[in-house]
């Protein structure tokens, strides 16, 4: 139960941080329609975040609320993988970050549907519908940018070089995840990874892009060892709750 709490928290942190990053685009996107699309994905992720924190709070049973979990934990207590805290960069960086995450998110949620934990399975079912659309969106943009102009190709290649090294963490189980896998509570990541690789190959091929090989994968976020970017996200995210603790908004 404590382990499941930790894991649900990790999933919630992940959706929150990525949703937060996407929400930074709001009003600054390259095309109004894409402002809408990114806000939409951010809203879906925020919705998933809230369901997960609510469930985590219940698992913990200490009376903490969703907002306590989101707003009153430090950077080293956050458990999101490094990928989702990386800066928005240009639109290509955002698209590649989203693609790497969506590809995991979609295939992971799919496996979670039949999860032994019913509440988690129920959250997964709702989120999977959304994640299906997210993966479609980011895959199509990878293809557009890869098979677009020389500049878009150059940019998306650069983003892939920069961000691919954060993709391995998604399916590299931590001690916590291994323990939950051993108990059969969460899926084995080999299966998820296989589906991800197949999808990535299909999309990158259509985008006329090469799949990066022999990338040294960075890990640590799921164990609370983050890049310096997370701290700045939290100063903004948490400022109001830190300044006015315990109030209702």
């Amino acid at each position, binding site marked *: 139960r404590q382990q499941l709490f930790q894991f649900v928290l990790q999933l919630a942190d992940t959706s929150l941080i990525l949703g937060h990053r996407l929400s930074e685009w709001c009003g*600054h996107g*390259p*095309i109004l329609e894409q402002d809408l699309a990114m806000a939409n994905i951010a809203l879906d992720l925020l919705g998933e975040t809230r369901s997960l924190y609510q469930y985590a709070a219940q698992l913990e049973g200490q009376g903490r609320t969703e907002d306590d979990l989101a707003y009153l934990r430090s950077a080293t207590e956050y458990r999101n993988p490094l990928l989702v805290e990386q800066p928005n960069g240009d639109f290509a960086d955002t698209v590649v970050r989203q693609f790497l995450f969506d590809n995991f998110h979609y295939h992971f949620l799919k496996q979670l549907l039949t999860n032994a934990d019913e509440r988690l399975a129920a959250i997964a079912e709702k989120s999977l519908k959304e994640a299906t659309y997210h993966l479609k969106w980011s895959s199509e943009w990878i293809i557009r940018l890869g098979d*677009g102009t020389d500049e878009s190709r150059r*940019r998306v290649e650069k983003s892939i070089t920069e961000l691919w090294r954060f993709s391995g963490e998604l399916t590299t189980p931590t001690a916590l995840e291994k323990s939950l896998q051993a108990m059969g509570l969460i899926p084995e990541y080999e299966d998820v990874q296989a589906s991800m690789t197949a999808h990535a190959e299909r999309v990158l091929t259509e985008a006329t892009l090469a799949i990066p090989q022999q990338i040294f994968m960075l890990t640590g976020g799921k164990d609370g060892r983050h890049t310096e970017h997370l701290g700045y996200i939290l100063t903004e995210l948490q400022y*109001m709750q830190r300044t*006015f603790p315990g109030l209702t908004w």
Partner: protein
Amino acid sequence: MENPTQHLTPEEQFQARIDADVRIEPKDWMPDAYRKTLIRQISQHAHSELVGMLPEGNWITRAPSLKRKSILLSKVQDEAGHGLYLYSAAETLGTTRDQMLADLHSGKAKYSSIFNYPTLSWADMGCVGWLVDGAAILNQVPLCRTSYGPYARAMVRVCKEESFHQRQGFEIMQTLCEGAESQKAMAQEALNRWWWPTLMMFGPKDEDSPNTAQSMNWRIKRFTNDELRQKFVDMMVPQAEFLGLTVPDEKVQWNEARQAYDYGEVNWDEFWAVVKGNGLCNRDRLGARVKAHEEGAWVREAAMAHAAKRAERELVAA
């Protein structure tokens, strides 16, 4: 039988349709001045939605709860949607979104001056919803019956969502006013900053608004600026009282004879300064839009290039 309008000029026929409250549609004949005025008005409205995303967007990353964060992001997203409907409505008059954006970026086209005021605290999210959207609704509800069909239909959708936003804004204010002292102080401080700028949203005084008569004649405007401003004051003063807040205007008091609230004189120097580009945020707002547009150019080009490649491949395959 003889058609009673057949001896009328096109202008007279057009005005007759307007007077009979028959909607003008894109393919109908219309006077050039009507077309131009509408393009200016609708695009200005669309630009206001676009630029209006920024002051509220400023607090998305700092919203004080996950629920408020979702609601705010969703609201700003709605504004992007309104922008889309309105650009489409304007395009039916023979302009393009690119052209309208170019006019915005060059400063030729305007957007609502209210968005040149900064959002400095969370309570501003309340005031923008409650007061700014409240003023916008008073301006816009009559436009649901405006004479130009696509505009009127866009406004129906916009107004429906705006009144939802206004309720959310009021609810933010209410939560603050029922909360801690620090929250109530935050609410009052925000009201002090937003009250006068929202009164300015209805435009100059009627005597300084020479185009009102023509616009009312064309039914693209249905009330004068001062009429709407009075309505707004009459609506908002009791709401402020309900919240336990004080409107920052010593002259506000109920006038039994007029059955309306008296109120003080707007600072028109400030109004014109902001209109002319000298508000606190004019440069930052326009700068943010221009930056987004310029930095997004390669994305738009890539999307078009890819679409063209794909179309060509499909043609070859067919």
